[in-house]
């Protein structure tokens, strides 16, 4: 069965303040959806709420991945069900090497007694690291500790590649990347495109979408998707900014939940 991800009227709040005010979206396997919008409109909240960050409280709605409502699940269960969020600010964890962490994550998806062999794991990891032009030393460094912004993002993509998720959310994966890193990261994502995997790419800039070509583009304002279209929408936003969207929809302040 090809992947199907359906978000229905998703509402979420942070510290009692409603940020997402009813998100509806359907992503099929093979599709890349981009969510664009100015800062403070709820884009990253959508990513975090879908993954289950403890700070975000889902107050209404559903999100079904291949028929299962992931919002009913714990964070780790969502991941094992096929969700993957490449985070904007990945945590640094002292004392846990990248390799140990990756192996734990892979084995969390496998039955006890059926853990991945060390040799096979190393081969896979090294292969993917090479594709991402990562220094092999990073396998033995503590997770994200002392990594530059670009290295952290590559490391997120490495995890995505090894975990083989069904629904990938990239949250501002382009922030802090120079043009070379952007190309490498994008190649990694494009290599993962397949019929049984959907992508939700959250970005502030159209630049990323030159590398990762979306099938659908959505504009988020005031905690809602206010406009959807094809790749041409992203180009128009790049050229003309967001003002015309606001004008068209009669929006004065596009942000949501700002003090």
């Amino acid at each position, binding site marked *: 069965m090809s992947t199907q991800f359906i978000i229905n009227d998703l509402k979420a709040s942070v510290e009692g303040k409603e940020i997402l005010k009813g998100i509806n979206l359907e992503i099929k396997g093979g599709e890349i959806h981009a969510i664009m919008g100015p800062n403070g409109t709820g884009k990253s909240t959508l990513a975090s709420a879908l*993954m*289950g*960050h*403890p700070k975000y409280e889902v107050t209404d709605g559903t999100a079904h991945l291949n028929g299962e409502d992931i919002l009913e699940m*714990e*964070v*780790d269960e*969502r*991941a*094992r069900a096929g969700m*993957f*969020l490449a*985070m904007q600010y*990945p*945590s640094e*964890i*002292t*004392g*846990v090497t990248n390799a*140990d*962490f990756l192996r*734990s*994550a892979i084995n*969390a*998806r496998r039955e006890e007694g059926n853990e991945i062999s060390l040799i096979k794991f190393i081969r896979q990891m090294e292969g993917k690291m090479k594709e991402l032009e990562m220094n092999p030393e990073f396998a033995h460094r*503590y997770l994200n500790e002392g990594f530059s912004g670009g290295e952290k993002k590559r490391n997120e993509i490495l*995890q995505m590649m090894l*975990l083989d998720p069904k629904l990938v959310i990239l949250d501002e994966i382009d922030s802090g990347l120079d043009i070379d890193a952007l190309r490498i990261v994008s190649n990694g994502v494009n290599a993962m495109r397949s019929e049984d995997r959907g992508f939700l790419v959250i970005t502030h800039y159209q630049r990323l979408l030159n590398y990762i070509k979306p099938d659908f583009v959505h504009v988020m304002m005031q905690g809602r998707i206010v406009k959807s279209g094809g790749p041409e929408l992203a180009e128009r936003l790049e050229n003309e900014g967001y003002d015309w969207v606001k004008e068209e929809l009669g929006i004065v302040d596009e942000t949501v939940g700002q003090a």
Partner: protein
Amino acid sequence: MSIQLSTPVNRQAAEALSRSKGEPEWLTAKRADAAELVETLELPKVEKTRIDRWNLSAYGQYKAAQPVSSAQELSQDIQAFVTESQAGLLVTRGSGAVFSTLSDELKAQGVIFTDLETAAREHGAIVQQYLHTVVPSNEDKLTALHSALWNGGVFVYVPKNVEVELPLQALLYNDDAEATFAPHVLIVAEANSRVTYVDNVITTGSAAQVAAIHHGIVEVVAKAGAKVSFASIHSMGEEVVDISIRRAALDNDARVEWIIGDLNDGNTLSDTKSVLNGRGSSSDSKVISIGSKKQKLSLTTQAVHWGKSTDSQMITRAVMREEATAIINGITKIEKGATKANGEQTEKVLMLSPKSRGDANPILLIDEDDVTAGHAASVGQVNPEQVYYLMSRGIAKIDAERLIIYGFLAPVVSEIPIDAVREQLQRLLERKLEA
């Protein structure tokens, strides 16, 4: 001061005991003098820890230990601590030594590795020269008490320019709560020598379950250019009070590395100090601890800089569970004249329950301007962002927390010089964290 000791310590008793063991006169005299001091000296002042309320009464009686002829005769639970590749092995049980071996090659090079009581008889001149010079008997009531009653113990002597490649291992265990368990470890590393010493301090059987005391003192003398690596893992029972004072005196360009695992189940007073006398000497201390139940831990690392261009690094990491309390002190003292000295310290406590407590006290005492020093301290809980991050990759919450906790201790664990000891430590960590 109302410290009740079941063993009467006075000049006569200390003398009588020493004589009955056939100790040399000079040692009998040292013990007798120390016993007299016990009466007059005060307990040490320990930061935020009322050791006067600890049960220090169960000091026990000297009991001669029965030697064994090979390591195979040791009980299974003790044998489990013996590592494969060591240059020498020494085992003490309760009050005395039961087994020791040292490679012929090292013997031929003049290395001495034996229990301290034997050393006092057979190598009296060297032992007499150094015993109690690093930790003076008259420092406080506890050092005096120890000097009067220490038994068994370890003596390591490494001659000039001799490099001991493989580690020397000691197992200091007690399985009889009525036996005095007060080992004294004396390590003398002559100029430009090298040695790695590892010990496990253990209680088993009845000694782990009834009130008892382990009262240990370690003295390390590192002569010019010598390097001493000292690793010690303590895993004693819930009713056992562990008082462990470790101290090194360093000459020019000497180096001491301490790795301490305080993994007892009972109250623990652990104080590890390097006195950097010589120019260019350096010290590195790494301490980890896990507290559980109602344990009270006082963990102190200290570095005293007298020499110019001396360097000290100190790290303590403690995980506190249940209702355990840890007071963690890091004291960097730089004396006047110790120009270009550098001292850095970090104390971190991870608290796993609302009733656990941790106190990190970084203390810098600096009497010289031309120095660098730094400290960092933190006390906190497992970071929920980190747990979320790991869980978002499919790792279950309990495993995520486990990874973070072990990761917190990893910077010390990964430094243990011997694979087998590191694995032992890992097992002990698991036992304490997952009990």
